[in-house]
């Protein structure tokens, strides 16, 4: 036996430590927490009907031929996909963080002047086992069951609940701590985890590696993404449009903040933006133990796409960030980017408080911020005094200059969002549409059948609280203030989710 090799190899079992998986403790069907999230949420829901969006659902959903208000544009044909956590409770247990819920993929099919909806729970191995057992079997990052089944790798609890991307003939449901989950595009059935290294020289070295929920698709179709390990190692992926691996590299950034949600690409560069957060450790849940690090600058690493090596580093004022819209290079070689920047990390913990029906006590909102990373190392930032989250740009502009940035907004301390915005990044002009106090608005996605910014639509969902129904809204992206050109009503509400994608027919 090659003892030295064997010892070294077995020692690598310690790598499990770096996945951010929870430690488990014992006794079934109960959580370790003394707080009864389910009871607290039910009580709060009676007083605040807006919380219904965080109730979750228990079954797949389907509705044909939605009732349409307004006029469905003739050139609007295709599928609007969305993803989000939808199974939040089983029995007496309610998850303690919104990020823990099992994913449900939504498909709004738009064809021949009609809109149909399907919502289907993603049949991961975890979901199927728990569905059969009629109870949660696995602890989550924050919710610790007293007798969880063993979790030996991140994909054991991959809930595939964050975003959705059509790749080749499939859909990939994405969750940042594990591998992508492959779905059949027509049936939405689960087809297994995506094995990126298969049939390439990478082999099993990529098995179970994290593949973030925010891949960037260049206009020519190439897919770029990253995966974060809390040791500070980040893998960069480059795939072709069919999802086949072209190149990858692991970079040791030494960023041990514990969470990295999004990134950016330009035509020639990959940008890793490392927020000012740290892991406090202890016996709290994984998300619960993450804290803001006000002494730690927000750092931007600029890597070249060819060698995937760090070329430049920039330090910005301390901030936390979930999402970015776009980045591009100007003629002088400076990099322009935007970010929805938070002054602290409270927003992450708000998503736990909401699970107990608690509304934020203090301001937890981000602001849209335009950032210039000059070639000479200087940095310039321009923040706009408005709430901003879920920033998106027209897909055809990814990595290239965009004129418009789209995002959700709201008044301070809203349960979610109530406004959609279009910001002209050239002149700062803002167009917006406020849905009104009865609505909770989810991410809206820009797209253009012609690929032009001056003829684009914005599509997204919103929950109408008084009637407990969700609706699909289509706007002329350049005339948001006029309200939706088309609104299609579901006969039910959808759990508030995260990210979507419009796929033109």
């Amino acid at each position, binding site marked *: 036996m090659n003892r030295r090799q*064997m010892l070294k190899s077995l020692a690598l079992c*310690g790598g499990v430590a770096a996945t951010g998986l929870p430690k488990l403790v014992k006794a079934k069907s109960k959580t370790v927490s003394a707080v009864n999230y389910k009871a607290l949420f039910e009580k709060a829901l009676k007083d605040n009907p807006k919380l219904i969006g965080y109730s979750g659902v228990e079954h797949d959903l389907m509705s044909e031929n939605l009732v349409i208000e307004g006029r469905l544009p003739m050139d609007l044909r295709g599928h609007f996909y969305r993803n989000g956590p939808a199974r939040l409770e089983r029995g007496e247990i309610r998850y303690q963080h919104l990020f823990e819920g099992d994913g449900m993929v939504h498909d709004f099919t738009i064809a021949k002047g009609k809109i149909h909806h399907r919502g289907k729970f993603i049949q991961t191995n975890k979901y199927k086992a728990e569905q059969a057992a009629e109870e949660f079997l696995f602890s989550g990052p924050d919710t610790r069951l007293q007798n969880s089944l*063993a979790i030996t790798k991140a994909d054991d609890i991959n809930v595939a609940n964050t975003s959705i991307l059509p790749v080749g003939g499939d859909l990939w449901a994405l969750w940042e701590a594990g591998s992508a989950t492959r779905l059949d595009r027509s049936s939405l059935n689960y087809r297994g985890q995506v094995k990126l290294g298969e049939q390439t020289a990478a082999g099993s070295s990529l098995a179970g*590696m994290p593949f973030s929920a925010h891949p960037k698709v260049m206009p020519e179709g190439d897919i770029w993404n990253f995966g974060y390990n809390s040791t500070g190692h980040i893998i960069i992926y480059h795939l072709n449009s069919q999802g086949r691996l072209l190149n990858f590299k692991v970079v040791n950034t030494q960023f041990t903040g514990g969470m990295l949600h999004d990134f950016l690409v330009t035509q020639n560069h990959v940008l890793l933006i490392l927020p000012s957060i740290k892991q406090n450790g202890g016996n709290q849940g994984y998300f619960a133990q993450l804290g803001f690090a006000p002494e730690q600058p927000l750092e931007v690493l600029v890597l070249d796409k060819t060698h995937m090596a760090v070329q430049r580093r920039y330090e910005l004022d301390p901030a936390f960030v979930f999402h970015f819209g776009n980045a591009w290079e100007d003629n002088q070689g400076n990099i322009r980017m935007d970010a929805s920047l938070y002054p602290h990390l409270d927003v992450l913990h708000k998503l736990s408080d909401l699970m107990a029906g608690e509304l934020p006590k203090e301001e937890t909102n981000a602001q849209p911020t335009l950032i210039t990373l000059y070639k000479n190392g200087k940095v310039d930032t321009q923040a706009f005094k408005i709430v901003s989250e879920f920033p998106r740009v027209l897909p055809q502009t990814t990595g290239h200059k965009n004129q418009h940035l789209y995002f959700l907004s709201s008044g301070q301390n809203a349960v979610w969002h109530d406004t959609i915005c279009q910001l002209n990044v050239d002149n700062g002009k803002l167009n917006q549409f406020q849905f009104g106090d009865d609505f909770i608005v989810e991410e809206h996605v820009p797209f253009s059948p012609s690929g032009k910014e001056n003829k684009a639509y914005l599509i997204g969902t919103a929950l109408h609280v008084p009637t407990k129904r969700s609706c699909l809204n289509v706007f002329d992206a350049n005339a948001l203030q006029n309200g939706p050109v088309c609104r299609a009503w579901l006969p039910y509400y959808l759990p508030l989710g995260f990210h979507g994608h419009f796929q033109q027919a």
Partner: protein
Amino acid sequence: MKHLLLMTLFAIATGKSYAQNHSLEFSINSVNSAKGKLYVQLFKGEDNFKKGAPHAAQIMPASKGNTLLVFSNLTPGEYAVRFFHDENNDGKMSTNLFGIPSEGYGFSNNAQPVMAPPSYQDSKFTITADTKVTQNSSDVIY
């Protein structure tokens, strides 16, 4: 008395103690294929487990299902086992680029890793002076 004397003399001559006449039957269960080999290490005591200094080791061809191994000539005490299924037959446990095993592995007592390999406390078992054959088992974690 004569018998005891003979035994003592034999023990001195061979450098062994009769206390070594114990064995461990260890079953590795749920091997998923006959590809490659099983690499198995037996550790005696916590220090050796932590240092990665095995008391004994075996390599055997993998076979689908359950495989029984026997470690003989053991003295009473605390032990722990760890193993991996080297499916691609490259002599090491393959991992992904973040160090997470991509081949099957396991520990005695069917101890499970949670954020880290199982501890010695989770994996240890005792071979007692009054038990000639001790049994233990574990499923392979893939």
